[in-house]
Structures are given as C-alpha cells and as structure tokens.
C-alpha cells in the first residue's frame, strides 16, 4: 500500500470523529443535539472541500487535473464522433505526410554516415577545365598516396561486376575493386577474417576476396569455415579472406571486393585512363581547404613530371556526405517546406472546425464559468482536447507515414541515396510526437482563448441551444490563408509537371519505345581469348535475333540515359598536338553492327558498321552530328580520319544523329561528342575489359514478361552458367533519368492535391456553416422578394470573395517561392518560374474548386422555404 493510500484511508473517519467530539462538547455546554451538530459543522467548514484539499496534499494536482481533462475530453469527443473523426483524419494526413518526408530527410540528409568520425571522410576527384569531377588514374592516385600529408589514410576503389560460378548456381554480382587501405580509411573492420594486406594489393598478388555478409549467408550458410575457401569469379579462383559486417555499404551495394592492383592492367597501369575513385580520411585538425591546397601542389608536380598525361589536371576534394547526398538534399528540404504547408492547411481546417464547435459550446463554457471555473482552467481543458485530437491524429499519421514511405520506395526505387537508412526510427517517432504536440497547441489555442472570453450573462440569458454565431472573421481569414497556401503548392507542382511534359517532348535522338536492355554474363568457358569472346557474342546475338518477336538486337557498352560513362580523348587526323587532357573528349559507344537499327538512331551520312568490319579490316568509326559540326565544319567528315586515344587512327565512315545520353534536359555542355566503334574491331587486349560492360538491347513490340523467358531460354541454351540480369525497358530508363524532377513533381502533386482537398473542405465547411447561421436572414430576404437566384449568387459570392483574396495573396507568395525552384538548377526545364500558363491554369482550377465547394450550401440556401424557416426560428 502506498503511503498516500495509507494516510488517506481513515480520513473520512477522522473527520467524522472530529465533528462528533465537537458535537459532544457542545452538548455538554448545554446545546440541544441538533444545535450542537450544526454548530460543530459550521465550525469545521466544508467537509468535502477539506477532504479534497487533504487528498491534494498527497497528489501532484496537475496530473490529476490532466487525467480529469483527458477523460472529460474523451467523453466530449465521443459524443461527437463525426467531428472528432474529420479532425483526426485531417491531422493524420497532415502529420503523416510530414513524418514521411521527415523520415526521408533524416535518413538521407541528417543522419551521420555509418562510419566512425564520418565528417573527416572526403572523396578526392580530379578535374579539368569544364569538368568538375573526374575519376582519377591509378598511377596518379599512387603518387597522391605517396606525397600527400593531409590524410591519415587514402584509398582507391572502382565498381566492377563479377560472375560468380562457384559455389552454388551461377549469379551475377556487383562488386568493387578496392585498394588495401579501403576499410581502414572508412574505419571499418571485417566481421570475420581480415582485410587485404599490401601484399595482396599487387599486380600479381594472391587472388583474394572479401565478401558481404549477405553472400556469406547465401553461399556459405554463415559458416565460419568460409574463410580460406575459394570462390570462382569470372572463371578465376579467389580465396575468401574476410566477411564484412552486416549492412556494410559504400556508395553502392556490393557483394565481393577484390584487390584493385590485381585488376585489369590496361586500365590501372595507364596514367591517361581515369578509371578509379579516391577516398581519404583527413588527419585530425586538417581542414578541407588545407588538404585541397596541398593536393593542388601535389598535382602541379605531376603536371610537370607527366605533361602528356596530366597537363591541366587539377584536384577536387568533396566531403563524402555531400558527395553521397548530392542535389537530393536541396530537393528534400524543398519538399519538407511543401509538406509543412500541407500541415498548415490541415491545421487551419481543424482550427475552423474547433471555432464552430466552441461557438456551439458557448453555453457550456458559460455554465462552467458561472460555477467557478477559472479562465486558465478552461483554456487548459480545451487545449487538452485539441492535443488529444492531435495525438490521435499523430498515431494514425505514423501509419500514414509508413505507408507513404513504402509507396515512395515502390515508385522511386533508385532515386534516393542512402535509402537503407530511411525508416521510422526513434528520431522520427520523436518528430511525429513533437509535431503533434505543437500542432495540438497551435490550432487549439486560438479557439480556446476566444471561447474562454465568452460573456456569461449574455449566453446564459439567450437561452437557445447555445449556437451563437462563431467567429466569422477568424474563419474567413483561415480560409483565405488556406487558399493562398494551396495556390503556392499548386504552382510548384504545376511548374514541375510542365517541366516533365516538356522533357517528354524532347527528342532523345532514338526511339525509346519497344526497347528492352539487359546484361548477360558469358560463360567463362567461352571467354578464354579475345577471338572466342567475339564469336561468343556473335552467336549469342544471332540466337537472340531468332526469338520470335525480336525485330532487331545488338549490344552496346553504354546504354543511353543510364548514366553509364565511357569518355576519352580523340583528335582529328593522326597527329596528337596537345596533351591528353587538352585534347577534345568524346563519349565512346562500342557496339555491334545492328545497334543503330535496334535503337532507331537516324543515319545522316555514309554507313554504319557491317560484319565485314573486323580486326583485320581498316579501323572505322561513326561520329555523331555534334562532333561532325564542331570538328569538320563545312567538310564532309566521311572519309576523313580521327585518332582514338589507346586505339587507332580510324576512318570516319558515317555520321549519325546526336543521342541525349546525359538526360533529356541536358544542355549539351558535358561531353557532347559521340564516337561509335565496332566492338568486333577492338584490339584483342581490350576485348575482355569491354565485354564485361556490354548490355544487349532488343527491339520488340512484345512486353518484358512475354519476350524475356524466350530470350533467357536461348541464352541458357548456349551455356547454363550465363546469368541474365539488369532487365529494364528503355521507358523505365527514361523515367529514371527524369527522377530528379519526377520525385519532387509526384510528391508536390500529391501534396497539392491534399491541400486542394483540405482547402475545399475548409471553404465548404465555412460557407455551409454560415448558411445555417443566416437561414433566418435568408428567409427574411426571400419573404421580402429576393429571388432564389439572388440568394444563390449571394452565397457563391461570399465563397468566391474569400477564394479570390486567397488567390491574390497566394500568387504573390508563389511568385517569390517558385524562384526557389529555379535556384535548384536541375529542377526546371523549359518553363520560367513565373510561367503564366501554369499560374493561369492553377488559379482557374482553384476558383472552380472553390465554386464547386460553395455550390451545395448555396443550393441549400436558395431552396429555403421562408415560411418554414421563420416558423422554426
């Protein structure tokens, strides 16, 4: 038994005893028993109050009052379930949308990277005039590592795909080639086994591999015996040295990590080939600026030592988090702002409903005031009710958020970096809780303060059901604010919608419809030599072309709009006149002869490749129209020669249309020159390196589900150990290339729709309430000869006036706020921030919605029968 309970147990008995003793004394003094009792009671005072006050000594009074308020609030709300439900649902949508976006912002932008002291980690890029971030060459990286003093650790990596053939079924795996300091730089230790030593990280070191936790579970059943076993990657044996911690991830998902120095010597032995990425951990106390200063000195030295390769190269140090989050951070903050507006609109609606309700409760408040409730106590009661509503809305909102986030992932699987750290976790719960509390107080305060002002005398005297006029001015103000805010959201969504529309109208330079791309891991038995690889691909494509429904098929090393990159220097003629960095650069497509036809890229002059272009015939290239225009001006490029670095001086045999490789909205400033080389003509030593990158493109009117089983059949027919993976339609790739705009567009559109819905409910509610309040007035007007039409117009006019004021204010705000969109340079394409078409159409839309929302109450007003209405009153 608690002390409190023990102490209070006999309280009533004590009081009774006390009074009895007093009564007894009074009787002894000669009073009659009744008089004696009355005198004792008088002397004692109010028994109930004494008991209450004594009890209060033992309790925290505010908790008891709070519980009282809550239970009263619950009862009051349950008496009016429709009202409570509308509010809770409104808030659930508002809070849910906010929590969803916050969970994304927190996961992507706010949460620290999952490595120790993550803010010391940086990416070290190279750059050259006009190209801000450029992969580095491995020899340059090794020189950096030797010379730079600003970093505690420095490591290199590059992504690579592997075909795993043993143990278990053949499978394509994404992986990375990493230098030996990679894990140490990140501050990560293998969960089992150990990291590479510099001994493995050598061109002819023992083949060794680190595997992901996932692969370890899948292929080794989580057995500790996995260490020291060998796995077969691309036909070569690698010994498992270690298993990485569960969930370890750097930039991309990867299952196998092999030593970089053991990789392709053609790629990593050449200072002019920029194939790797550098990461580093800054020494304690060294700032990014200091590190950048030192690195440019180091690079200047390389410039002097290797002018042919490194002239004009610089370095560019970027904090790792900034690198990973990229542009998305800004977009997400924008969305957070937008979703905050939705919440404001929801709050305005709720505040409006509470105003109406508090008007209906005026009498209740008057009675409570008359019975001695203080103003503060009543404000507290009302706030408890509104916080109660907000909290319920918040709980539902969490579910809305969970649903929203999973829907977003389904719609944009690849668009968000760090997707793995997004989820409903403790900080998100705190956010939802906090926002509910703030919202509950914010929307509850105004109605609470207003209604606690109620004039007791007047409301008690009026004697009706207590429906006094609510607070019309506050209500209209809220509706106007809602309209304005909704317009702002509509403007944002509208501009992005126009952008997407314009992007869709852009001609990408090829026919994106009816094309499916996928990758094939050729059986290691077929890829022993360059010539066997050429034959294997030829046969593979021949088999695929015979599948019914396939109109054309061929492969390419880079798929347009997929962000795959393969740039390199070239020069016109055979004489190299400048350094590799100063030479013009082009994007190289290594394709088969049917590629042009498969993608339906227009051939402008000359011819494309034929099977007759072989390693033994004259090296030939096809160039795009941009390169032709820029470097051959008025001459006919066909028949001229171009030198491709690391390859040959080749004859130009054709000119094809430009392909928008870098995105539909690409302004054409980065690497607009395109050169096609026949894969079959590549030098023997380059064939294996490029074969790994090839994607097959198939033109077919059939859909993926119909054609792919047949395609897989013929691929597996040629060798069971040939995985088919990365199956995507060109349309999907196009959509994904627009995800920068599509993600904010879809979300803004959802928010704007939500806002529109809430605002129309808001204006409907206010107008319909006002019609109810004015029934008598309307009846009098009609009795005095007003036409139905006039009444109708009067009500619509009342709504329209609010809408128009809201529109004007909203348009002014939107004109300022949409500038934000243009400040994110990548978001808008083809439309200005104050695009008149967008603004005109959304204003029209909002007006129509407002009129429709007022239509029902207006019709009700027009149908008022003056006799009935007046008699009723």
């Amino acid at each position, binding site marked *: 038994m608690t002390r409190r309970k023990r*102490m209070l147990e*006999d*309280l009533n008995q*004590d*009081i009774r*005893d*006390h009074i009895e*003793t*007093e009564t*007894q004394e009074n009787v002894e003094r000669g009073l009659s028993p009744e008089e004696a009792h009355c005198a004792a009671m008088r*002397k*004692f*005072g*109010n*028994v109930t*109050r*004494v*008991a209450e*006050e*004594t009890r*209060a*000594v*033992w309790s925290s009074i505010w908790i008891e009052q709070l519980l009282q308020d809550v239970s009263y609030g619950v009862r009051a709300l349950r008496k009016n379930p429709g009202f409570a439900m509308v509010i809770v649902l409104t808030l659930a949508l508002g809070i849910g949308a906010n929590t969803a976006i916050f969970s994304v912002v927190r996961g992507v932008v706010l949460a620290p990277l999952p490595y120790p002291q993550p803010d010391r980690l940086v990416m070290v890029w190279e750059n050259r005039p006009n190209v801000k971030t450029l992969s580095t060459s491995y020899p340059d990286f090794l020189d950096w590592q030797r010379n730079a003093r600003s970093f505690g650790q420095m490591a290199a990596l590059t992504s690579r795909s592997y075909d795993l053939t043993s143990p278990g079924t053949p499978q394509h795996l994404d992986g990375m080639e990493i230098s030996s300091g990679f894990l140490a730089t990140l501050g990560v230790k293998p969960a089992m086994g150990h990291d590479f030593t510099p001994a493995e990280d050598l061109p002819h070191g023992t083949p060794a591999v680190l595997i992901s936790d996932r692969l370890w579970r899948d292929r080794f059943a989580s057995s500790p015996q996995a260490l020291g076993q060998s796995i077969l990657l691309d036909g070569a044996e690698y010994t498992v040295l270690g298993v990485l911690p569960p969930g370890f991830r750097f930039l991309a998902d990867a299952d196998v990590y092999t030593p970089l120095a053991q990789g392709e010597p053609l790629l990593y032995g050449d200072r002019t080939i920029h194939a790797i990425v550098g990461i580093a951990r800054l020494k304690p106390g060294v700032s990014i600026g200091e590190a950048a200063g030192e690195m440019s000195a180091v690079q200047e030295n390389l410039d002097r030592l290797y002018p042919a390769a490194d002239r004009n190269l610089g370095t560019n140090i970027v904090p790792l988090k900034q690198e990973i989050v990229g542009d998305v951070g800004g977009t997400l903050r924008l969305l957070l702002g937008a979703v905050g507006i939705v919440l404001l609109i929801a709050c305005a609606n709720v505040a409006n409903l509470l105003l109406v309700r508090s008007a209906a409760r005026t009498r209740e408040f008057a009675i409570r005031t008359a019975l001695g409730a*203080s103003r503060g106590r009543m404000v507290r009661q009302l706030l408890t009710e509104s916080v109660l509503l907000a909290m319920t809305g918040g709980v539902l909102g969490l579910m809305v958020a969970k649903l929203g986030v999973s829907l977003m992932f389904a719609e944009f699987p690849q668009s968000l970096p760090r997707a793995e750290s997004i989820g409903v976790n403790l900080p998100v719960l705190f956010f939802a809780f906090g926002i509910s509390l703030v919202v509950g107080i914010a929307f509850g305060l105004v109605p609470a303060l207003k209604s606690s002002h109620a004039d007791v005398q007047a409301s008690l005297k009026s004697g009706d059901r207590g429906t006094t006029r609510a607070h019309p001015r506050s209500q209209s103000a809220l509706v106007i604010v809602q309209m304005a805010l909704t317009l702002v959201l509509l403007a944002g969504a509208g501009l992005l919608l126009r952008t997407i529309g314009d992007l869709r109208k852009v001609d990408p330079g090829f026919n994106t419809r009816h094309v499916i791309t996928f990758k094939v891991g050729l059986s290691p038995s077929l890829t022993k030599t360059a010539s066997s690889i050429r034959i294997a691909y030829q046969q593979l494509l021949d088999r695929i072309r015979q599948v019914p429904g396939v109109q054309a098929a061929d492969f390419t090393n880079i798929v347009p709009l997929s962000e795959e990159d393969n740039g390199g220097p070239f020069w016109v003629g055979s004489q190299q006149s400048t350094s590799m960095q100063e030479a013009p650069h082009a994007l190289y497509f290594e394709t088969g002869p049917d590629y042009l036809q498969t993608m339906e890229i227009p051939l402008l002059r000359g011819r494309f490749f034929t099977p007759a272009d072989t390693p033994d015939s004259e090296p030939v290239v096809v160039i795009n129209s941009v390169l032709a225009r820029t470097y051959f001006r008025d001459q006919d490029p066909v028949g001229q020669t171009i030198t491709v670095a690391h390859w040959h001086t080749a004859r130009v045999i054709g000119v094809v249309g430009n392909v928008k490789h870098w995105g539909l909205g690409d302004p054409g400033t980065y690497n607009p020159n395109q050169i096609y080389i026949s894969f079959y003509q590549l030098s023997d030593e380059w064939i294996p390196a490029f074969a790994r990158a090839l994607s097959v493109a198939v033109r077919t009117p059939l859909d993926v589900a119909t054609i792919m089983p047949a395609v897989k059949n013929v691929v597996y027919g040629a060798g069971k150990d040939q995985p088919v993976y990365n199956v995507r339609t060109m349309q999907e790739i196009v959509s994904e290339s627009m995800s920068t705009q599509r993600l904010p567009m879809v979300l803004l559109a959802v928010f704007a729709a939500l806002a529109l819905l809430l605002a129309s409910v808001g204006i409907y509610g206010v107008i319909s309430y006002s019609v109810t309040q004015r029934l008598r007035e309307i009846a009098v007007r009609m009795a005095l000869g007003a036409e139905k039409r006039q009444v109708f117009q009067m009500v619509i006019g009342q709504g329209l006036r609010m809408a128009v004021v809201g529109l004007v204010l909203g348009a002014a705000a939107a004109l300022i706020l949409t500038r934000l969109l243009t400040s994110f340079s990548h978001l808008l394409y083809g439309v200005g921030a104050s695009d008149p078409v967008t603004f005109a159409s959304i204003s029209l839309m909002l007006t129509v919605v407002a009129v429709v929302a007022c239509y029902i109450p207006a019709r009700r007003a027009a149908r008022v029968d003056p006799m009935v209405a007046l008699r009723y009153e």
Partner: protein
Amino acid sequence: MSTKEQKKRIELLQGTLDLLILRTLRLGPAHGHAVAKAIEFNSDEVLQVEQGSLYPALHRLIKRGWISVEGGTSENNRRAKFYRLTTKGRRQLAVETGKWEKLAGAIARILRPAAHEGKS
C-alpha cells in the same frame, strides 16, 4: 495580478497555521480535535481557525516529515490518531519561530514610528 496576490496571502496563512500546529504539538502528542481546541484556547480565542483546514495542514506536515502519526485512544476512550512532533519537526519549529520573530520584529519596527507620528 489579483490571483497572484491572493495566493501569497493564502501561503502566509498556511505557514502560520503550520507554525501553530508545531508549537501545540511541542507540548506532547495530541489528536486533531485537541490540536484545534488548543490553538483556540491558547490564543485566547483570537485565532479562530476553521477546524477543517487543520487536516490538510496536518497532512502537509506529515508529508514533510515534521510530525508523525500513530493510533491511540482519546480522553473519552475513542479510537483516535495522535500526531507527534518529530526531531525534524522540532528543528523546523525553531527555525520557523526564529523567522516569525524576525518578521514580527520587523513589522513592529515599521509600525512603531508610524504610531509615534500619529501621536505627535
């Protein structure tokens, strides 16, 4: 503004009542009714305490540990709770008495010159 002033006055009264209870119990343990009577009697019935208000005050003092409570029988053989001053309460009484005397002294010093002025 007005509520704040009211509160201060209530606190002052409460404090005074607490002091009177402690002072009364210094003479020995007593039950509730006896405490009320004693306060009334000892102050020559100048201080008319509403007897009920004694109970919240008693419980407040118990909660603070200044008095303790025990079962027993009253003079007329009734079962009754006896309240007893604890050591802590005894110390508190000294402190409170000192404070009170200081306050009373201060007030007296303020009032006396006023009285002189009134005479002259």
